[in-house]
């Protein structure tokens, strides 16, 4: 199977280049990550992040034939050859397929991604009705792989100011949580021409999310909450 892989080692390379590989696959190789590990057997200088190899840890997000995704849950059979592998777009490359995610996590941290509730904790747990819990489905599953935010042009242009789809999905996850008490502060934090309103609903995020989540819908609901609060 033929691959074109983005290579860049800032210590030795003046600039990035594409390297071609022709790799023999075994019958047990199902996912793209299996194939990449075969490449790594041939050329162990190729660097990438991976861990759980089953789409749970979010480490091996990369640009596969022009579309962001997780190598470990992308079936080899779905790929057109030569498979072009690049690092996630818009973030600084540390080496080969490894990007510096600091900016991404900075935005994630900026939305207070944890429950805020100052009342005395009950003896067992804070309960929710099944209907209230239902609202969190499609939000809590995010694994922060950054496929969505790095496919978003608004995040490319303003990564330091725009929270990005992943961060906004998590922002709504806590806005939607009936146990959270900081709704107003959260909305204040987001009501900003850059932080929230850089989203122009082009839905690249929805298109690429490997977990099938819908950040655009969550962003729409944040805007709806802001409208309800204001008018």
């Amino acid at each position, binding site marked *: 199977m033929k691959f074109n892989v983005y290579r860049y080692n800032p210590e030795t390379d003046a600039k990035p280049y594409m390297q071609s590989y022709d790799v023999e696959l075994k019958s047990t190789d199902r996912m793209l990550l299996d194939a990449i590990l075969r490449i790594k057997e041939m050329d162990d200088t190729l660097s990438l992040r991976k861990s759980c190899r089953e789409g749970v840890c979010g480490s091996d997000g990369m640009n596969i034939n022009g579309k962001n995704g997780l190598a470990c849950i992308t079936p080899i059979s779905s790929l057109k050859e030569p498979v072009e592998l690049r690092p996630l777009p818009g973030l600084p490359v540390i080496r080969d397929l490894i990007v510096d995610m600091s900016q991404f996590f900075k935005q994630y941290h900026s939305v207070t991604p944890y429950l805020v509730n100052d009342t005395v904790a009950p003896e067992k747990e804070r309960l929710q009705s099944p209907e209230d819990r239902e609202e969190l489905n499609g939000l809590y599953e995010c694994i922060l792989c950054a496929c969505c935010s790095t496919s978003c*042009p*608004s995040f490319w*242009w*303003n990564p*330091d*100011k725009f929270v990005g789809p992943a961060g906004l999905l998590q922002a709504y996850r806590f806005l939607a949580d009936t146990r959270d008490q900081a709704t107003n502060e959260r909305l*204040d*934090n987001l*009501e*900003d*021409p*850059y*932080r*929230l*309103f*850089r989203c*122009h609903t082009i839905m690249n995020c929805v298109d690429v999310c490997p977990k099938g989540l819908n950040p655009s819908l969550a962003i729409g609901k944040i*805007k709806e909450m*802001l*409208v309800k609060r*204001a*008018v």
Partner: protein
Amino acid sequence: MVKRIVVGAHYGLRDWLMQRVTAVIMVLATLVFAAFFVTHLSMEFEDWQGFLSFQAIRVLTLLFFLSLFLHAWVGIRDILMDYVQPVGIRLTLQIATIIALVSYALWTVSILWRV
């Protein structure tokens, strides 16, 4: 001055909402205009004059263009915020946009009440 990223202007909702509302107004006005033009296929100068002599049509046309300019303001400003990073150039372009759009609005009024 230290280079710090300052963000948190706490506005944006009004502009976002305005863009949606003005879009709806433009759709409704377009439907009214389309209905008129379909029923009056050959428009001569006198027809245009007659059409625009109705006060209601004048007001609707003005509403359409004001919506268009407000809509354009939000859209153009969004483009400038996305793609023009130096603050000085962005502010200059935004001021130029405001001047252009306000001029268009005044021009629209003068055209509508001249015929």
